[in-house]
């Protein structure tokens, strides 16, 4: 009689082999999962850096350091007058209720901005030409704005009227504004970019500090994950805001969670980007 089946040693050997194979498969799966997680995390880090590379230079390029757009300069924090809107007056200004008050009418087109004017947060620069025969006396009156009401421009196009409380451009006085129809009006918001630690997760982020709140714009970064260096036109570091011609930004981002490296150790990889931004609006002549 033939008995079919396995002997106990055969079964033990088979089980052992299956165990080894199973462990190998599990290890392979875990390795795959770790590799996927690591790649995702590193992708996120690089994506953060790309956002930094696209976003921060865009904020800084439009600044005019000579005219005071660098409000406060720090190694890991920078407060600026960030440009937000471009509009154009369609009428000469009219006197407002006080000596520094002017009623201005903006044409609905051309207008460019990443959002509309917000009287609660925005201020304006208004171009002051003065003597049209020379650009040497050109400047910008600046000040706060009130709420907008609908208006009509002389050419029949829709516009908006608002009252601005302005400080005259350098070299001008109240009542001698040098502002004409067609003058560009630039809206700006004073805000800061700084390194900060979130009270919620304890991680470091690059934060945007506005008048009302602080919000993370990218991260997590390392505890030294944001650094500014201020350079003059010759490339030397300067501490005088009016001499700044270029700003170097360093961002060091790290993964949100720890990942395993090739040796199986848990690490938080760091990647970094360095950007050098020339300030396009510094006075030219």
């Amino acid at each position, binding site marked *: 009689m033939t008995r079919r089946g396995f002997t106990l040693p055969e079964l033990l050997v088979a089980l052992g082999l299956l165990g080894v194979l199973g462990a190998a498969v599990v290890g392979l799966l875990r390795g795959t999962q770790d590799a996927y997680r690591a790649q995702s995390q590193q992708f996120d880090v690089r994506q953060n850096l790309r956002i930094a590379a696209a976003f921060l230079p865009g904020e800084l390029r439009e600044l005019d350091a000579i005219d005071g757009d660098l409000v406060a300069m720090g190694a890991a924090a920078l407060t600026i007058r960030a440009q937000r809107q471009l509009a154009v007056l369609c009428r000469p200004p009219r006197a407002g209720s006080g000596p520094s008050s002017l009623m201005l009418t903006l044409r609905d087109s051309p207008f460019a901005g990443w959002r509309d004017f917000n009287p609660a947060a925005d201020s304006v620069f208004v171009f002051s030409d003065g003597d049209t*025969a020379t650009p040497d006396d050109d400047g910008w009156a600046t000040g706060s704005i009130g709420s907008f009401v609908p208006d009509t421009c002389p050419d029949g196009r829709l516009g908006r009227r608002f009252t601005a409380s302005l400080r005259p451009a350098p070299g001008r006085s109240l009542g001698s504004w040098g502002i004409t129809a*067609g*003058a560009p009006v630039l809206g700006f918001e004073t805000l800061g970019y700084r390194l900060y630690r979130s009270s919620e997760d304890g991680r470091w982020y690059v934060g945007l500090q506005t008048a009302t709140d602080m919000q993370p714009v990218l991260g997590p970064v390392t505890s030294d994950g944001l650094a500014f260096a201020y350079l003059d036109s010759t490339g030397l570091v300067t501490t005088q805001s009016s001499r700044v011609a270029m700003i170097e930004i360093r961002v060091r981002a790290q993964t949100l969670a720890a990942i395993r490296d090739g040796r199986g150790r848990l690490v938080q990889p760091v990647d970094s980007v360095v950007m050098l931004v020339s300030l396009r609006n510094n006075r030219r002549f």
Partner: protein
Amino acid sequence: MVRNRRGVALGLVLWALVIGSAVLTVAVFIGMQERRAAGTGRRMQRAMTYAETGLADALAGWTPGLLGRRLLHPFDSIATGGTGAGSAEPSWRGTIRRLNRGLFLVSVQAGDPPGSTVATVATLSRLGWVVRVRPVPLRIVAALEAGGVALGDGARISGRDQLVLGWLDCPPPDSAVAGVAAGVIDTTGGSEVDGLPATILTAMDTLFPAARVGLFDQLASQSTVELPPGSWSVGPTSSGSDCNVSDPRNWGDPSDPSAPCGDYWPIVHISGNVHVLGGVGHGILLIDGDLVIEGSFRFLGIILVRGEVQAASAGVSVSLEGALIAARAGVAGRPLSGIAITYSKCMVSNSLQSSGALVPLRSRGWKQLF
């Protein structure tokens, strides 16, 4: 004999293939994501470079006079565009828009791939530049500046800055200049000269002021209207609300800034002697010979005459508000009569807005448009 083979080899191989495929898929997927994201960043940089190139190139070939002729009124605009170096495709497109007499807004959009205009298929960058006219520098020393001046009855020359009726967009009046500055000044009892001082006697002879020759040549090189020598009646011509700037005898409309040709301030260059039979105009008038005014004539701006100015006809009204520079304004025995020349800084400035160069504002001219 066929042996019955039982085992797990096939299953194991299939399992390994599945795992391997999964690993490969994940790697490829993440790699593609990485490549796309990096590509987007690179395209953003390229698009911005194209846009900055466009900003620099958009005004090539334009002078204030030529641009003012195309864009007569505030907020008029023209389309423009160009290709980058080594590219056949238009790498940027844009518009130039007039804001007022001396300000223009250049806006440029560029995409990568070059020529793209739709955000869904390309990375786009929009930049703007506010530019202004930097006029040819001109310091007026007198309402009438000449080598030799002879004034007769009815000639009234004033160096006191005057606002011109109807022209509201002017700065407050400036301090006065001299009435007449010349090497030889001959006035008769019927003429009036006023200014601060009334007259300046220069060391010039009866030639076109040497210091103004360069100015004349510079302005002539930027002329927007070229006329041959001859006799001309001038005045604004328009069809409906469109000023006819192709008519060389249309020198603008000084009577009303809001008229169709009220914003048209040409630089007129006449290459020889000219007889003006009458009319009106404003801008800059450059004459390579003599100017003989035979009919009623009103002009706002600057007149430069390399030869002699004559206005001898009786019973006609000749008025110039701005400044006149000539070799001779009348001569002994044939004085300049019946003419009123009044210095107006506003009209001089307005006319010079057609000259010079277009330059970015000295601060805050560069703008990222969204």
